[in-house]
């Protein structure tokens, strides 16, 4: 029983990271309908930014979060404003955006490889190596802090989208771009800001991850695919959905690893994902 509890606790923590990257993608893909195949690479860039801050200035990954977030926001907004927006002109055809972001992903990954080499790098935080015991289960402190941060970020995103002026503008642009433009919303800036916001959250995820994981150029691949799984499972554009499905995915992985052995956990995750996708689509077409 305690194995299961421990696996559950681990799954919750891993799921937290999946949920956070899922929230970032749900802004870009769910709300803005930009097919972003470089989400994992944005996370990787966030991790490296946090690593550089640690390496050069000795900044704790958790303290670096605001700097990483602002940097990634500017980076993401510029990326959207200069490159991605050009491929969005053709509304029916989204293969261009798909290929563009795949290309950007390869670009970032190999730039990182070129600059940082393929070594695994770590940064330590004041919370590192500390463990919290709750009855039979133990959780490492950085993971717990990340999890709390996740809840805060998700709540902030939810409130931002729901109640603030910017959030309303984002949702309006998402629902009807031309209508939003007619109402005086500068959709171009909104697109850039939303992408920037998504990139910033990916950066925050990266900084959190940095406190207990190591960074290497292709670290994003795992999380990029996972983020899509989370978003499609949770429903497009739903922040709360991303939170729940991220945690479910984490639990599925760790508990699945206990049940069938850790080597086949990826297969389970991917096959479940395909099943969910297909069933969801079937239900949607049936409802009409």
């Amino acid at each position, binding site marked *: 029983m305690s194995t299961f509890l421990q696996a559950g606790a681990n799954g919750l923590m891993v799921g937290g990271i999946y949920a956070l990257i899922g929230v970032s993608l749900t802004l870009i*893909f769910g709300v803005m309908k930009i*097919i972003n195949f470089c989400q994992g690479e944005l996370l990787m860039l966030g991790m490296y930014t946090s690593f550089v801050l640690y390496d050069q200035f000795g900044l704790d990954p958790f303290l670096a979060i605001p700097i990483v977030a602002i940097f990634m926001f500017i980076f993401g907004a510029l990326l959207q404003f200069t*490159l991605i927006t*050009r*491929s969005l002109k*053709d509304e029916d055809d*989204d*293969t*261009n955006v*798909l*290929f*563009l972001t*795949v*290309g*950007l992903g*390869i*670009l970032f*990954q*190999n*730039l990182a*490889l*070129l600059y940082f*080499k*393929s070594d695994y790098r770590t940064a330590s935080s004041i919370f590192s190596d500390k463990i919290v015991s709750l009855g039979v289960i133990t959780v490492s402190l950085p993971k717990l802090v990340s999890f709390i941060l996740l809840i805060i970020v998700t709540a902030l995103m939810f409130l931002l989208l729901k109640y603030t002026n910017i959030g309303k503008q984002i949702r309006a642009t998402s629902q009807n771009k031309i209508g939003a433009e007619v109402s005086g919303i500068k959709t171009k800036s909104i697109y850039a800001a939303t992408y920037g916001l998504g990139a910033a959250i990916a950066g925050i995820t990266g900084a959190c991850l940095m406190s207990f994981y190591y960074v290497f*150029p292709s670290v994003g*691949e795992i999380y990029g*695919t996972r983020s*899509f*799984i989370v978003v*499609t499972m949770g429903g497009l554009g739903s922040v709360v959905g991303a939170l729940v499905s991220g945690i479910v995915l984490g639990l599925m992985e760790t508990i699945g690893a206990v049940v069938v052995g850790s*080597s*086949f956990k*990826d*297969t389970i995750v*991917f*096959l479940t*994902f*395909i099943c969910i*996708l*297909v069933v969801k*689509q*079937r239900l949607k*077409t049936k409802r009409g």
Partner: protein
Amino acid sequence: MKKRIGSRQILLLIMLFLVALIPMFIKTPYILSILVMTFYTASASLAWSILGGMTGQISLGHAAFMGLGAYISTLLLMNANFTPWVSIIVVFFVVGGISALLLSPCFHLRGPYFSLVTIAFGEAFRNLLTNWNYAGKGQGLLLPFGDNSLILMRFKSKAPYFYLALVMVILMYLLVKYIDQSKLGYALKTVREDEDTANAIGINPWKYKVIATFISCGLVAVCGVFYASYIRFISPDIMMQDQSVKFVLPAVIGGIGSAIGPLIGAIILTPLSEYLNATLSSIAPGANLLVYAVILIVVILFQPRGIMGWYENSKFKIKLNNWLDKLDGRKKE
């Protein structure tokens, strides 16, 4: 109208003849290996383009089906002494069947969701093979070495592989070209352009997507048989997602949806990438993929229809056609 053999056909044959002569003059294994990889990438990209280009279903998991082909033929060879020549046929039907069966529930998914499903299948296959004892787990399989043998597709020099790859790419090109102009090709292109319209005029999109998947994945598996015979070492790493991207890029850069596009793309990209990989990998790892990415981004931003898209609208094509007509002694009407 009877088709006359004009200067176009003759020029093509001369070019082909010159390419076929290359191994007689260039003995450097390095250059030959670059050419073999070019032909191999072009073949895989052509196979991809049946599903990705013609039918518009962007698959990012083709490397997994290529890997399946390589694994099946290798296991047959190692355990049953099965010749790769027969494996080609077996693999085409088995992998084509498996992929069509697995992907058939997923054809109602549109756009990026289909791509995600192919990624997920690719990763699942890789994960299975990484943990499967019979298939050598993560270490992969080493094909038996030995004397030259045509039956076992095993040669010590590069030249025989060069001809094999050349034949493979020519056959693949002719097949894609044939499908492109056949009734099947038009049905596939209708599905790509508008599924609802296709449905309305009696083309069942689902059925044609299954057919396209069968052919495309089966053919890419055949490329896998060649890959295994040539490299003589396979591991689950060949099924990685970035390998799939390597099949997709030539088609995208050359021009999606035409038979010549993937060929042109591979001829430009692969030698460049192999060269950069060989010269820069020690001092600047990843430089070859960096160049791939930059080319892809530039092409997508400035010429989304690829090199062939540019060529179709350029003055160069008119000039070339005029010149060829003059060679034929035909007058422009």
